């Protein structure tokens, strides 16, 4: 596989259940770097079962690359389950904190945007506002675009979290 093949292509969200143990995240990260796969975002947290962590990662590649990524992830001994989180069948959210310049005369306008996006002001100073927003890729991108003219000073994103729609869950049993 050429580097272009590996790094191009559409973005995909993959959920991985892993043992909640020391060193497991490093194994996942090493796998991606050793094999030249991209990680656009990654979030990790413990699940309802304290021995299991859930990693949600966003990567890019064509179907063949994606298949290898899925298989390689499954092959890790500490991986319990791997699932493709297809956009239409899942709920996907990311949280972002954004600090934007907000001199008094522009505040009203910013607050209006915040309201339309159902975002929240979480901190403010004489010159800035810090806003929290949760949403899917599209919403977050649109929000950033609207804030850009005011001067975005800093952002922090959590990486994506995703769950299947409906009653389906990711069981911690290897199929």
């Amino acid at each position: 596989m050429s580097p272009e093949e590996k790094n191009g292509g559409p973005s995909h969200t993959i959920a991985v259940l892993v043992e909640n143990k020391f060193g497991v995240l490093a194994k996942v990260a090493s796998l991606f770097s050793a094999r030249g796969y991209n990680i656009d975002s990654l979030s990790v947290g413990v699940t309802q079962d304290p021995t299991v962590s859930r990693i949600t990662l966003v990567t890019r590649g064509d179907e063949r690359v994606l298949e290898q990524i899925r298989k390689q992830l499954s092959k890790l001994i500490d991986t319990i389950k791997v699932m493709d989180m297809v956009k239409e069948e899942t709920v996907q959210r990311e949280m972002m904190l954004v600090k934007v310049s907000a001199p008094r005369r522009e505040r009203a306008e910013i607050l209006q945007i915040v309201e339309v996006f159902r975002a929240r002001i979480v901190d403010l100073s004489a010159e800035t506002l810090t806003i929290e927003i949760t949403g899917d890729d599209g919403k977050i991108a649109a929000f950033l675009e609207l804030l850009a003219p005011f001067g975005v000073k800093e952002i922090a994103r959590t990486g994506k979290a995703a769950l299947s729609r409906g009653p389906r869950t990711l069981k911690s049993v290897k199929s």
Partner: protein
Amino acid sequence: MSTRAKRPIPIKSSKISGAEIIYRSLEREGVKYIFGHPGAILLTLLDLFLKRSQIRHILTRHEQCAAHMAEGYARASGTVGVCLVTSGPGATNLITGITDAYMDSIPIVCLTGQVSTAMVGNDAFQEADIVGMTRTVTKHSYLVKKTDDLPRVLQEAFYIARTGRPGPVLVDLPKDVILGEAAFEVPEEPDIRGYKPTTRGHPRQIERVAAAIAEAKQPILYVGGGAIHAEAHAELLKLAETADIPVTFTLLGAGSFPSAHELSLGMLGMHGTAYANYAVCECDLLLAVGARFDDRVTGKVSEFATRAKVVHIDIDPTAIGKNKQADIPVVGDARLVLHELNKLVKAQKRPLWRKRVEKLKADFPLLFDSQSSPIKPQEAILTLSQEAGDRAIITTEVGQHQMWAAQYYNFTFPRQFISSGGLGTMGFGFPAAIGAALARPEKLAIDIAGDGSFQMVMQELATAMQYGVPVKVFLLNNYSLGMVRQWQDLFMDRRFSEVGLEVSPDYVELRPAIRKMIETPGPFILDVVVDPDELVFPMVPAGAATKDMIVRDDRKRALSGKLSALPDN
């Protein structure tokens, strides 16, 4: 894999030391030899080797060789090889061996000493983050943090190393974990929720394979190292003979099918036989069994077996579709899958295809100019093969001699040929032969060596002498790094740079010398001075299609035209 319920068997309920747990775990796994090099962290464990005799510790002269010996032992015996080294430099010296085992799917367990858990991360004396350094070249690794975890971790390590696609597992053992105490309790079989390798092929897929075999006019079996790990040789022979399918094998598949069988095409790939490569170009069904479509085999992969429907039987789902798309993938153990397949495959004759293959064999045989002085390396191997035959287990180093060994030795049984394929590690063969000699004392372990490679690991002669291991070194001495020299010969206008290894030879006659080597008890080096200008052919230039291989030694053609450009690698 068994799904038996976890039933703890308390072997002894009172607490014992970590060192004792390690020793008993090794005993429980049936370990007979452990290859190692000590350090202070291991003292209490080493002490047990004085008191007990169930496990023999072989003191190697370099840790890399401990890993290669464990690999040779594993390859020859079909069981897990074990090595034990100290922290820091001991552990880092193992890395080449671990990587070699990873590339060739060899089951070894590497035990490394580590500084005490309280010191880990402090840049303590002889601390090295070996788990971090080997993360991408181990099948799995553990840093044990409590003595209580030791019994389970060691049991899992052996289990993971030998099941599924075999591979190296590293267990890092901090000093306080070795010194601490815990109860030695383990379940009968480990139960690892994230590790359930698929061994039985899907019945529908197997039916599809049987149908494809029945339909095919020109099928080929392409057999790799997985057939040997799976012990699938009997099923393979049955399938080939029943359905009349010619067989070609990879470097690591050599021995899975008798080289001299009428259906055998020998090795395929970069230095495979021309007839194997041409037959693969022409086949309409390619049955890959435990082989991973390595670039040394396929050449330019987009032109590999383009007319063929591809069946890929492999225990590792990641191997399937990685380099070549499979039309019928079958995930499972090669022996179990072929066993099921054989129940469905009907006897068939393919006279036209067989005739075509015979013609390819007749038109493009393996060739060299026989002469007595200097000795031709091919001649040396043919003579060795005649004299040592199936008494021998052959290991090799890496280079031209390795390719000639694969081409000219007549392999008759699985695990007879042990070579470093994926990593191509010079210095593999001699320590591997020591491991193989210990694993199979009834056989004669012979390292077909190159002078360059042997000089990387010569210190292990001391190990062989100390333990009286009767290994033979059949040194094909061309006073050069022949394989690199060959590329300079073909692609750099014969500008030979940094490939000469000049020392002065002693001449003796070949056949009587081979006999003397075989008959002399104990370690023996036979220095066979061979023609340094001899090149390995056939050769598929790197990145070229297999159909464009250079069939014979025709240097003029090689130097002109498209081959004068230096290939990628």
